[in-house]
């Protein structure tokens, strides 16, 4: 079974530029998550999708971050404009269902450096 795919793996941009990350979850997984992991910290949930609907985006900085999952499969996360503090690894995860307990499977992440 193929795992969660993410691209690009690395991205370096200057502050105030925009950037987009892509995630393809495990086939058939209804729930998709985007996490932000700053160096030395644990992952922090940014947004959770159930199929193509948003379940939780309470920690997403909506003035600069946006995410979509239009067809309920793959997803993109965008930052516009980027700030220095956005430097982090952005992890995508998926699970078969977001309800109750279902194991989350994580992708390799995209390491973003904002200069």
């Amino acid at each position, binding site marked *: 079974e193929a795992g969660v795919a993410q691209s690009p793996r690395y991205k370096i941009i200057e502050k105030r530029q925009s950037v987009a990350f892509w995630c393809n979850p495990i086939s058939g997984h209804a729930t998709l998550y985007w996490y932000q992991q700053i160096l030395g910290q*644990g992952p922090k949930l940014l947004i*959770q999708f159930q199929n193509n609907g948003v379940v939780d985006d309470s920690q997403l900085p909506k003035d600069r971050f946006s995410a979509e999952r239009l067809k309920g499969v793959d997803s993109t996360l965008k930052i516009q404009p980027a700030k220095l503090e956005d430097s982090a690894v952005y992890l995508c995860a998926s699970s078969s269902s977001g309800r109750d307990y279902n194991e989350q499977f994580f992708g390799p992440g995209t390491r973003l450096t904002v200069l």
Partner: protein
Amino acid sequence: SQQGEEDPQALSIQEGENATMNCSYKTSINNLQWYRQNSGRGLVHLILIRSNEREKHSGRLRVTLDTSKKSSSLLITASRAADTASYFCATDEGNTGFQKLVFGTGTRLLVSP
């Protein structure tokens, strides 16, 4: 959501020794999970313990949960160099029927041959 605290922040042991790491959290939870993260395999789920359970075993892993103290511990027995990684606890704090994980700050484990 506030991240939980993990203790110690870093731990260095020899192969064959046991490693114990602790996690404290702040709110009521549905379950608590432990994850391992290393550069080779990314973030991987290790074990889950539900809020009504006190102890769980999986291979060389033993997890305890004390909901009255809002704390958990992960014990890795007979450690191996391959156990070198960062370990995170994650509490499921979802209250809408959907899982919502809040990760701790992590413990960096180094196992020397």
